């Protein structure tokens, strides 16, 4: 397939393909981060993760409509407001869900799976009733569309770079929060030994609620960012849930580094394979690879102790 091309052309294609891989990496990491906190740190299998993302997407849609109607002049910057709103809405819903549902099921981890799956079905129907069954189109500010012409033949999508920057920011934020802040220390203490953590004076309930809300909030931001590259409909969350779990489980549930490494491995292998074979084949090959590695290393790439 490369016969008729000059070295220069091939070079540009490989640069663009490299960026395609990096963008996919950012997308995977962004959608897995919220889940890594909830599943990794708390051990809660949140099947409704995708629906929290879509809540963020719908918030973005609403914000864009609000700005269009009331402040058309500020439309260029509405996306930042939208992301903040998406975070707040998803986090608030997360806190509510934690209080109403999850907190009652900490001793029955498998039941949380069923409960959150039910929650995801309910949320889908709520979106369908409120926003309609059809997909909605989120208008993007013009500066986010199109591509950046690096050289004559190298074009990098602007929204891809935006997602990369956002992912970098949020990952650093989460890392600092988890490993450098006092709150992160409490979270890790609760994860390791809930009873002891309570005994030394940590309010475990509050820590749980905040952790769950944070994870959901990040999912909301991810959903908001994905309005740039994906669809916004009642069931669009289902498109992300499998990949999110794949990344988190493959990385080793409790490790942030693991999540990053896993997102990187999966995205690079998929995007490279997709280039040389086809979309369906790439997916199949990647999944087979992940299955084999998990058979050899059931705890994932990077793992500490698994919570019992």
């Amino acid at each position: 397939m490369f016969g008729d091309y000059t070295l220069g052309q091939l070079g540009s294609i490989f640069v663009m393909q490299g960026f395609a891989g990096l963008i996919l990496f950012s997308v995977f990491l962004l959608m897995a981060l919220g889940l890594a906190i909830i599943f990794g740190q708390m051990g809660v299998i949140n099947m409704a993760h995708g629906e929290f993302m879509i809540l963020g997407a719908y918030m973005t849609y609403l914000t864009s409509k609000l700005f269009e109607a009331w402040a058309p002049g500020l439309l260029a910057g509405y996306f930042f407001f939208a992301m903040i709103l998406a975070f707040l809405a998803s986090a608030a819903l997360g806190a509510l869900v934690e209080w109403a549902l999850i907190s009652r099921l900490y001793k029955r981890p498998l039941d949380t799976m069923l409960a959150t799956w039910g929650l995801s079905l309910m949320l889908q129907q709520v979106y369908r009733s409120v926003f309609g069954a059809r997909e909605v189109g989120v208008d993007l500010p013009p500066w986010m569309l199109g591509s950046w012409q690096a050289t004559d033949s190298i074009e990098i999508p602007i929204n891809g770079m935006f997602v990369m920057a956002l992912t970098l920011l949020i990952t650093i934020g989460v890392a600092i929060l988890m490993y450098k802040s006092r709150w992160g220390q409490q979270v890790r203490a609760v994860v390791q030994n809930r009873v002891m953590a309570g005994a030394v004076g940590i309010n475990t309930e509050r820590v749980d609620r905040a952790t769950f809300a944070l994870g959901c909030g990040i999912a909301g931001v991810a959903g908001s960012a994905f309005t740039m590259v994906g669809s916004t409909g009642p069931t669009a969350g289902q498109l992300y849930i499998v990949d999110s779990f794949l990344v988190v489980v493959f990385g080793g549930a409790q490790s942030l580094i693991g999540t990053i490494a896993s997102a990187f491995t999966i995205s690079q292998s998929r995007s490279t394979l997709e280039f040389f074979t086809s979309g369906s084949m790439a997916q199949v090959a990647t999944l087979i690879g992940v299955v084999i590695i998990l058979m050899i290393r059931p705890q994932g790439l990077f793992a500490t102790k698994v919570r019992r």
Partner: protein
Amino acid sequence: MSSNSGNSDGFSRRHILSGLAAAPALGLLGRPAWAQASVNTTGLAVTDTEVTVGILHSVTGTMAISETGSVEAEKLAIDQINAQGGVLGRKIKFIQEDGASDWPTFAEKAKKLLVNDKCAAVFGCWTSASRKAVLPVFEQYNGMLYYPTFYEGLEQSKNVIYTGQEATQQIIAGLNWVAKEKGAKTFYLLGSDYIWPRTSNKIARKHIENVLKTKVVGEEYFPLGHTQFNSVINKIKLTKPDVIYAIIVGGSNVAFYKQLKAAGIDLSKQTLLTISVTEDEIDGIGGENIAGAYACMKYFQSLDNPNNKAFVSAFHKMWGDKTVIGDVTQAAYLGPWLWKLTVEKAGSFDIDKVAAASPGVEFKGAPEGYVRIHENHHLWSKTRVGRARTDGQYDVIYETADLVEPDPFPKGYQ
């Protein structure tokens, strides 16, 4: 007309007159136009004043996005038919069931509509998978299904009327057009990974290679729900095809066009021909992301004819001004009308008589223009090419001179 309705001539004149008058009063006028026994010998749910039909679509689950429009169109058609006096003097009453985007559920609900409710006709299904699931049910219990979606062909049943186009009707005219108008020599075929895109691309490839004598430079499929297209977009940049031929469906569509635009592929310069993006899909994709692309199907909301103007305004009146109408929505609208015309031609609601009377039934009031049912239970229809505008509508820039014959088992294309 059937033999046992021979005594009904005197009534049929009254039927016509009362049909012209306000229909709701019909039941009060006295005897119905057609005696019960003569029009229904098989125990369907037909009374002297009412006939029951079924609507079977997904209003929940992932397919609700697409099927909502069909439900709306079918309800509109039923409303309009009732306002004109119903079918053989009987008002249509519908029972709606939800297939819930789940194919076994479709089969179960189809059985319920046929066996419990004894529906005289069912308007429904959208995906080929759901149609394949209900087909044995319709054949076993002898029901009548009006199926609205354009689909891959390779099927024909006494119990189904296909009101959408089969693959050759939709594909060949579009490819001929792009080869002639754009001088296209190379094609890159894309699709979601299931039966309809694969069969359609197979037909497209045969036509491109054997008839047009041009070249396919790439063919690729993506899992349903795939959201990352950057790699294939790079491949497209590398191979520089004259035409990108895309049959991507559902949420993937939105991701594909957004990423195509973000990657700097300008659809005003790069020819892209799709058979899977109707006005319904553009709603989610966003007009500015797909403006300039060409779509090949039989109906566009912007078609300029009196039938369509009346249809669009009635649709907007019933379902809101912002609702868009895509190809399948229009085809779904044809279902109840074709059924009414066929029943009146047969003079009976009996499934066997309706099936036998179907070939040759003409509908002059179709929004897409004149259509006629073929012996193979598909429709003769024109095929059109539209170009997407930023406002989410298409400019119709080409239509075939004649009706295209439906050919569900095309020779040389399999």
